């Protein structure tokens, strides 16, 4: 098992986090959130990966072939669906912010309130 996927996981998580912390634009912030989320995909898929293994579809391969773990793939798929909902909701809120207050800058929103 290679260590590189886990380095990618840490990198994606880190840069995404930095982006969320420093962002001055809601859309940018939400995209940084999706970068963080990408780290979860990479982690899950890396966990299930086996070198030289086939896709876990037993229709056309022998029953005892070496295959990658299908469970983490199912988890990733579920994760994609769940987080797509979250991102859609967040983007909808960002659109509302822009429509009603003419800004997508979180700081400007805070200042406006004061």
């Amino acid at each position, binding site marked *: 098992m290679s260590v590189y996927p886990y380095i990618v*996981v840490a990198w994606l*998580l880190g840069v995404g*986090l930095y982006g*969320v*912390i*420093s*962002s001055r634009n*809601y859309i940018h*912030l939400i995209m940084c*959130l999706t970068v*963080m*989320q990408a*780290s*979860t995909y990479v*982690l*899950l898929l890396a*966990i299930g990966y086996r070198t030289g293994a086939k896709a876990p579809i037993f229709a056309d391969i022998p029953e005892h072939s070496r295959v990658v773990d299908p*469970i*983490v793939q199912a*988890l990733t798929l*579920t*994760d994609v669906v*769940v*987080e797509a*909902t*979250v991102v859609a*909701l*967040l983007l909808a*809120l*960002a659109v*509302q*912010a822009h429509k*009603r*207050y003419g800004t997508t800058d*979180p*700081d400007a*929103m*805070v200042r*406006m*309130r*004061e």
Partner: protein
Amino acid sequence: MTDLAPLSVAVPLLAAALLAFLHHLLPRRVFDLLAITAAAAAAALTLVLLAHVANGLSVYWFGGWHPRHGLAIGIDFAVEPIGAGLAAFVAILMVLALVYSYRVEDVQAPHYHVLMLTFMAGMVGFCLSGDLFNMFVFFELMSVSAVALVAYKVHEQAALEGGLNFAVINTIGAFLFLLGIGLIYAHTGALNLAQIGRVLANSPNDRVTVVAFTLLVAAFLVKAAVVPFHFWLDDAYAVALAPVCLLLAGAMSEMGLYGLARIWYGVFAPAFGGQEGVIRAVLVGGGLITAVWGAAMSLSEDHLKRMLAFLTISFVGIFLIGVGLLTADGLAGTAVYVLADGFAKASLFGCVGIVQHRLGQVGQRRLHGKARHLRATGALFLFGGLLAASLPPFGPFLGKSMIEDAAVKVGYGFAAPLIVLASALAGAAVLRAGARIFLGWGDVEEDRESSSSDEETESETTGSRDRTPAVMFVPTLLLVLAAAGIGVWFGFADLAGTAAHRFVDGVGYRAAVFGAPPPLATAHSSSPEWYDWLYSGGATVLALIVAAAGLWGRRIKAHAALAGAATIMRPLKALHTGRIGDYTAALALGVVVLGALFTITLR
């Protein structure tokens, strides 16, 4: 009988789908009735489930995927009394909240009821699930619904901001959860809690387990809003509709703590059982800081809903102390306290909703003396304040004394005075607000730093403002009665004690999931000690004194004390900036600290 478990999640989900589908055809009142019926059905189902598992644990395997050869691959609902009780509590709160919502203004036709029902389904499913990944999915279902409900009044800037803060921080929490799941799966090859626990019990610990544990704990603490993960909560709860707050404050924050207890006893206790002391110190420490921080902030807050949001944070801190003691007694105390205090907090939000309906405002200073005519609501609100200050012998008193006794038993006696302080300050905040608004007591202060425009909350209800609608008053009254009643009957403590002893029996839990008959429950009985009456009585008196000082501090020449309090509070208040970036940084810092503590000490 166990088939009822999936039904109690499916009924609200199906009802939500039906309502979303029918929204063009049905008038609003039919919607109300259908939603209330669905919630009531879920409440009945969970109550039957609770009665059924009162003496054991029942497992439902989806699709009949029972464990074979000692290996659990299927997905299960593992229902035990604490989880079923929490689910029933959620469903009952939801029924009352939906009745209360009868007058809530519709922004867009069917969404409100649909979201409320999916919110409930998420929470109930989370309570019953025996599978780590399904816990994650229900966790997200509950979070997404809650975000949409918080940001429901999109025409208000504060609601948009609150919703965005809530969504971003909780989504990062969800990523931590998922990363933790991935690591634990890599280590054990399992997602079923019992299966993971079995593998961990039979294998040496390594760093992966510690990191996974840290990530999962952090995710649950984000949801529970424990310092420093709590910043999103007051922004979100301050802007939500009153009936939504009933659910958020009464039940959602507690879900994180339930998850924490679930994974500790079900999964990690065998792995880290030897190092309980460290984990106890971390969790109880976090709980104490949260309890005092939240209480102090609630005392310095003018906006009524925000004040109650900090009250929620404060009590989550006390609950965390109970859970974090890692004993059955502490857990039993938390269970009682969560119910009693959940009802009490919900009733306070109910009162605030009535004030908002009648007077259209939620700022304490502006409302000064303006609600004198709302006598019944005022009485409920002030009584709620006394409950929050743990006035004996009512519900919160019972729960709090059980937590204090449990703390003393494991040598954490010093926690008790701090819990007293926190509940006294929190109670004082409510009592002072109540005295100002409903009695017109205290000095009228000029509105110097009453901060924000989020005080100018628009009305969220329809109908005549000349009377308090029965649909708002009756649920609030029932909530207060429930909160008080739990303590009047001390037998409740014994039930919770028995349930908690079953809950902490991880070996029994895992065996039962794999098909063994659940171990016999041993009856436990506890009642408050003499010093608990003293502590809680003291907390009530202290709350009254602090409230009086807040009201008439200037008159009795206590300028110095007031100025001192303001100086202490300034840096705390300054931390609550309302910026997502700052909150995320605090979250990251919290995870790093937690990870460092666990990595250094656990092995």
